[in-house]
């Protein structure tokens, strides 16, 4: 048994090492010979998967941080508290991943700080830059509030706890702004996008789907980390969360469909094009199949199925962002872009680094133990973290 696990580990480690190795090579090429040497980007297609996946998906998948903190710290639904710390940690890492990925995508990464002093308030990207910077600070403070426990810095901790509620509120507001604004970035190119994805409601769709996928990621992570690191899963909680996910997904899809009909784009749903096909795959995997699965109690109460649906939702979300940023634009530019090996390697390397850091941090800091926080929490209340049936 143990041997088996060991073998498995070495296999995945081997893969990870290979990915990282290629990542290092392409990083070298990228910074010495420029973007053109590693990417398939061109003047006609300036934004590839480093924007579509690394940025759009990275930020979206880290949404669990703000959704869970809204549920636990603002709506004070105490039973969700055990989920809050891992979610905040993942969000923090997710944003760090995005910042790192930006260093690859920006032509002049050393100018990344320019939005601090060079302002253009009419630019959506300027707004996103500021929100993300501020939100990273907020996440860091939230992270600090439990990292400090490790070091027993009581004074700082007490001080931080005093201001933590406004900090949580700030975090939620900032997330609302930049999650939706990532969609607003595309508002300015109506003529370059496929009608099935362009909509003046893009910011709303981006926001709602980020909330949905944020919750789905919490399920996904709890399961993965429970398996990989021997933490218990708070199963009944996860099952409840899956219902929130579904509600948001179904609302988003309904809005999109009504929008398509009202805008007179109905015909595009029946056009035999690759884009139409991608649209159905996206909503099928991301919303319809999970919705059907989760509507049955049998599946919702089953660990494996719950995990599977969260994987589906996350996949559908990634497809959506890639469809908005790549598929829908290829529709007007013609078939001129497919991510290069370099783009894929670097993206995968960043993901691998993220996973390694997450594992390390969650072993080191008290993310999965909530005893300390319970004692000190603002409202002392029993946290039913023992609810979870240990397997």
């Amino acid at each position: 048994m143990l041997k088996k696990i060991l073998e498995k580990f070495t296999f995945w480690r081997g893969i990870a090492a290979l990915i990282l190795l290629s990542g290092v090579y392409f990083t070298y090429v990228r910074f010495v010979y420029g973007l053109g040497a590693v990417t398939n980007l061109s003047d006609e297609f300036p934004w590839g998967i480093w924007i579509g996946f690394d940025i759009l998906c990275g930020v979206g998948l880290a949404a669990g941080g703000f959704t869970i903190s809204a549920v636990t710290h603002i709506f004070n639904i105490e039973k969700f508290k055990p989920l809050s710390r891992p979610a905040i940690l993942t969000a923090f890492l997710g944003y760090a991943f995005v910042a790192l990925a930006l260093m690859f995508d920006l032509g002049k990464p050393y100018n990344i700080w320019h939005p601090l002093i060079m302002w253009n308030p009419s630019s959506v990207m300027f707004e996103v830059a500021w929100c993300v910077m501020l939100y990273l600070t907020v996440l860091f403070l939230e992270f600090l509030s439990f990292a400090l426990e490790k070091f027993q810095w009581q004074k700082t901790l007490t001080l931080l706890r005093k201001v933590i509620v406004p900090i949580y509120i700030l975090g939620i507001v900032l997330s609302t702004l930049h999650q939706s604004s990532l969609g607003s970035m595309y508002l300015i190119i109506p003529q370059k996008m496929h009608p099935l994805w362009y909509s003046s409601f893009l910011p709303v769709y981006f926001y709602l789907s980020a909330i949905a996928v944020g919750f789905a990621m919490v399920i996904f992570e709890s399961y993965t980390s429970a398996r990989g690191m021997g933490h218990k899963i708070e199963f009944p909680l996860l099952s409840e969360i899956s219902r929130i996910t579904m509600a948001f997904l179904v609302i988003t899809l309904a809005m999109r469909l009504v929008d398509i009909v009202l805008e007179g784009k109905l015909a595009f749903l029946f056009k035999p094009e690759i884009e139409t096909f991608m649209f159905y795959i996206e909503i099928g995997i991301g919303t319809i199949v999970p919705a059907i699965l989760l509507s049955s109690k049998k599946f919702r109460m089953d660990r494996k199925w719950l995990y599977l649906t969260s994987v589906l939702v996350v996949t559908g979300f990634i497809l959506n962002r890639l469809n908005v940023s790549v598929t829908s634009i290829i529709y007007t530019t013609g078939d001129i872009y497919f991510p290069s090996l370099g783009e894929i390697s670097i993206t995968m390397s960043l993901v691998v680094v993220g996973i390694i850091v997450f594992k390390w941090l969650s072993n080191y800091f008290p993310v999965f133990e909530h005893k300390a926080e319970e004692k000190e929490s603002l409202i002392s209340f029993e946290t039913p973290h023992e609810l979870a049936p240990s397997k």
Partner: protein
Amino acid sequence: MIKQKGILFDATMCVGCGECYYACKAQNENGEGKEDFLTDHLSYKSYTVVEEYEDEIYTRKMCMHCVDPTCVSVCPVGAFTKTEFGPVLYDGDKCMGCRYCMQACPHNIPRYEWQSNNPVVQKCTMCHDRIKNGEMTACAEACPAEATLFGDLEELKEIALQRIADDPDTYYPHVYGLEEAGGTHVLILSPVPFEQLGFAGNLPNEPLPELTKRALDKIPHVVSVGSVFLGGMYWLTKRKNQIAEENRMKEDENA
């Protein structure tokens, strides 16, 4: 008041000689240029090109110097500016290389130095250095057929409309640039519909920055309403939990 400058290009008069292409190269020190210039494309060192279409129609491509430029609106660090005469200029020292300007430009104009590790965006400057001293743009000066005219924007508009009115058989009845995405400082006349010459045909007449402005205008509401709502929810739910707790304690006592 400063008079707005502009360029009028008339495809019915263009002879396809390539003089503007080479003049632009020389003016901006962008190398020799291609011998068969008709095959060149806009690039970081070709700010303008001459293209040949069916029936020996030639047209130029260059930055349109929009009235309300998308590139100026989207750049997060304000590297693009609309100058007082009309030219839209770029400052490479500010740029951080996000390429939103390229993604957003409705005419697909900004070009990038993909092979450089310190890349900048490049495009036509409407020869800002020349015109601020009262000179013509290099391309207009070089044109032997008067197909490219440089002058006051309002005058050029009148000339363009007059040409169509005088000779409706020759011209397609539209001046490209009068309305497209809020209008441009480069106006084009053509014998055929503009899509046939590779110009973006599906642009709204409204300036594109308006589309994002509408979304950005909602931010103050989101912030104020959102904070109040969240603060209120926090207070309410906390109170509810406290009451529940008190009730439970009472029950415990009673029991």
